[in-house]
């Protein structure tokens, strides 16, 4: 298989994943397109180093997250983590029974959106991967830290978000 064929195959199989990461970080359609292009460029550049040690999807997530951290389209620190009401795993952030019901309310979603955007860049990356449904092991492989470390960090983020949202409820 030529490099071009491998590239086309990886992109066509993972385009939805890349799109999702781009959506998380950009509300603007043009910015999403620019970042999508940049992720593809970086996939191409990194393709020669792909040894098949990890799953292709994990490899693609790495490239996408790393691109989001170095995205030249705009300063990454101003990036916002954009979540939609229909995001499949959104409820996994706040795994509290009472809050689950309230999360259905749009107002709560907006609040959560605001809180998510207060997170640091790395925390945003962790949350975006969690929202994508990646396991703790997969997230640890993408970020390059141990699985227990990922669990601790995500637990801490969840706790902080819960506290803030509960505080606003009170």
């Amino acid at each position: 298989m030529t490099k071009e064929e491998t590239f086309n195959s990886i992109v066509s199989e993972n385009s939805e994943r890349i799109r999702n990461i781009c959506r998380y970080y950009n509300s603007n359609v043009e910015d999403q397109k620019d970042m999508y292009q940049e992720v593809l460029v970086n996939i191409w550049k990194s393709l020669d180093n792909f040894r098949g040690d990890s799953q292709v999807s994990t490899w693609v997530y790495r490239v996408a997250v790393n691109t989001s951290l170095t995205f030249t389209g705009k300063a990454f620190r101003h990036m916002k983590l954009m979540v939609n009401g229909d995001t499949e795993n959104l409820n996994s952030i706040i795994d509290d029974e009472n809050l689950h019901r309230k999360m259905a309310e749009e107002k709560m979603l907006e609040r959560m959106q605001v809180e998510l955007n207060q997170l640091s860049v790395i925390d945003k990356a962790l949350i975006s991967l969690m929202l994508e449904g990646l396991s703790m092991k997969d997230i640890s492989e993408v970020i390059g830290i141990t699985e227990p470390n990922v669990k601790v960090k995500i637990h801490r983020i969840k706790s902080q978000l819960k506290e803030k949202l509960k505080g606003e409820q009170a």
Partner: protein
Amino acid sequence: MTTQEFNTNLEKLTGKLEKEDSNYARIIRAVQIFYWIFIPVFAGITILEYRETHSLNTIVSGLFLMLAFLVIALTFRKYYKEYKYVDYSLPTLEMLKKAAYRYQPFQKRGLWVLLGLAFMDVGLTIDWLDQNTSVVHTQIFFGASLLVGFVIGLVLWYIRYKPIRDNALRLIKEIEE
């Protein structure tokens, strides 16, 4: 954004990427031309000069200058490859650590450039001795040129690369906390 909007024309994009690869290949070829053609040409000039002057200094200075060009050209080739082809598929922490290293102003491998410059200094000093320029004057000229280059490089690093390195270090700290 619709799927249609996202549906990039892969053929067009692949063409763009291949162009980028071929640009890289062209630069590498240019560097190869530098040390496969320019250095022998320089060797030829040195031999011709020696036939005129019969001075051993001509040969020695020519050798040192050729060595300097070779070391600097090879170091440049290695640097270029590393900067141009950053691997974005590494785990984030590793990628950031490599970026922080790449953008630090002083690196161990920079010693190769210093070695090249030292060869150039020796070559120029010997060559200019034949033109009655004292060692001290040559050193002052060479040292001043290096200082100017160093200051320009440092200013460029401060403006362009220090912010990148600072960001990388901040993110590393955040991940490792």
